[in-house]
């Protein structure tokens, strides 16, 4: 059984990554090939030719079909093999699995699980990532660590003070208590850290132009397994949102991560920073992108080391958790719950009645004979 929940949506790519070219990427141990058809539809197929397993992502696209780069088996966008060299009749079983995908908020989401359980209404939203009122910079870093380590990392931002000192970490982050909430029905973890009077990290002083100390709010919303949102509010000290009307005296930075398992020991670390100010300022975009990438790479370096440590440790190793871990513990528990739910058989969709599953024989019914 995989360590991630099945029957869930995962981010497979940014929409802009999927175009005419064949994109190969492994998602939850499934090697996929993705491309965009002439109609603009995103296709995701298993990245293995049925003939001798050659990766279709290293093959050739002809119109809306893929022609295998080894012996020329040709697949349509549904994964059906429609031609093979000199072969008159193509076996009906000659097909590669196709995956359910859905584009939303600038992401290509893929359903990992039973296709008939895929419901696009279950995809968590981040509409600002695809909204002209925000400018977004983004990237993706390969992480040689299991996805759970990135979840731990992002749910406890007190590490900013130590791992990202001089970037987004200031003393107040580690010093401010947090409030943690879990919505048990919606499966959301919420961790909030409101710093009333904090040093302004250079990332924010340079991008917002605020000089002096700030009121800094960090409100995390984690929608396990894949989507992590950090609502960051930066304002001069003492400036709180008005009781009504827009919160226009503050700067809003929406940080997002998509945490997608690649294998049991590697993860796609998609990161985005959206802002509602200086929308057309290219210099600020470049600065935010470079700075944030530096911060992400600091995490990647640390987590790559941790993966080696975790793989090498004895089974009996005991962690110690303190108050800063309240949110991380909640995330782990929800993930475990989703793993169990994802492995369970599909819930019955037929109307539930009080009738017993096996109708009791009525006396007098003829007994069927074999």
């Amino acid at each position, binding site marked *: 059984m995989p360590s991630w929940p099945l029957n869930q949506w995962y981010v497979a790519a940014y929409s802009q990554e999927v175009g005419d070219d064949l994109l190969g990427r492994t998602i939850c141990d499934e090697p996929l090939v993705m491309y965009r058809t002439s109609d603009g539809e995103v296709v995701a197929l298993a990245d293995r030719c049925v003939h001798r397993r050659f990766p279709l992502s290293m093959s050739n696209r002809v119109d809306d079909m893929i022609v295998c780069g080894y012996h020329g088996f040709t697949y349509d966008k549904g994964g059906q093999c429609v031609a093979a060299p000199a072969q008159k009749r193509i076996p009906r079983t000659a097909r590669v699995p196709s995956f359910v995908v859905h584009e939303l908020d600038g992401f290509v989401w893929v359903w990992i699980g039973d296709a008939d359980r895929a419901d696009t209404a279950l995809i968590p939203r981040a509409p600002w990532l695809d909204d002209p009122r925000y400018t977004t910079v983004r990237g993706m870093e390969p992480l040689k660590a299991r996805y759970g380590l990135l979840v731990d990392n992002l749910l406890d931002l007190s590490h900013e003070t130590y791992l990202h000192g001089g970037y987004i970490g200031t003393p107040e982050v580690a010093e401010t208590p947090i409030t943690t909430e879990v*919505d048990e029905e919606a499966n959301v973890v919420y961790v909030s850290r409101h710093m009333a009077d904090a040093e302004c990290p250079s990332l924010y002083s340079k991008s917002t132009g605020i000089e002096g100390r700030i009121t800094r709010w960090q409100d995390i919303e984690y929608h396990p397994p894949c989507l992590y949102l950090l609502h960051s509010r930066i304002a001069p000290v003492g400036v709180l949102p008005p009781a009504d009307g827009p919160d226009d005296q503050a700067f809003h930075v929406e940080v997002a991560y998509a945490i997608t398992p690649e294998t049991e020991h590697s993860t796609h670390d998609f990161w985005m920073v959206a802002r509602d100010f200086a929308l057309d300022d290219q210099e600020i975009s470049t600065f935010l992108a470079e700075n944030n990438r530096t911060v992400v790479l600091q995490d990647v370096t640390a987590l790559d080391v941790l993966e080696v440590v975790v793989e090498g440790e004895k089974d009996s190793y005991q962690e110690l958790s303190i108050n800063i871990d309240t949110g991380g513990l909640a995330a782990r*528990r929800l993930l475990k719950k989703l793993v169990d739910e994802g492995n369970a058989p599909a819930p019955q969709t037929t109307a539930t009645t009080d009738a017993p599953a096996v109708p009791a024989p009525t006396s007098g019914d003829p007994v069927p004979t074999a």
Partner: protein
Amino acid sequence: MLGGTSVYRIVWKLNTDVLIGYCWCGESHEDIDPIAMWEWLLAHPDTHPTGGAR
């Protein structure tokens, strides 16, 4: 803040090591260990005598 009807909330008391946990049923509890705190919350309704109505 989450607004659902089954939200657990843990607040870290300012300038202390104390956590206060609030179950969605209205019961609350203080602890200094987050693991023990989650155990207390998730044991609902066993440890929540007055709020076990739901």
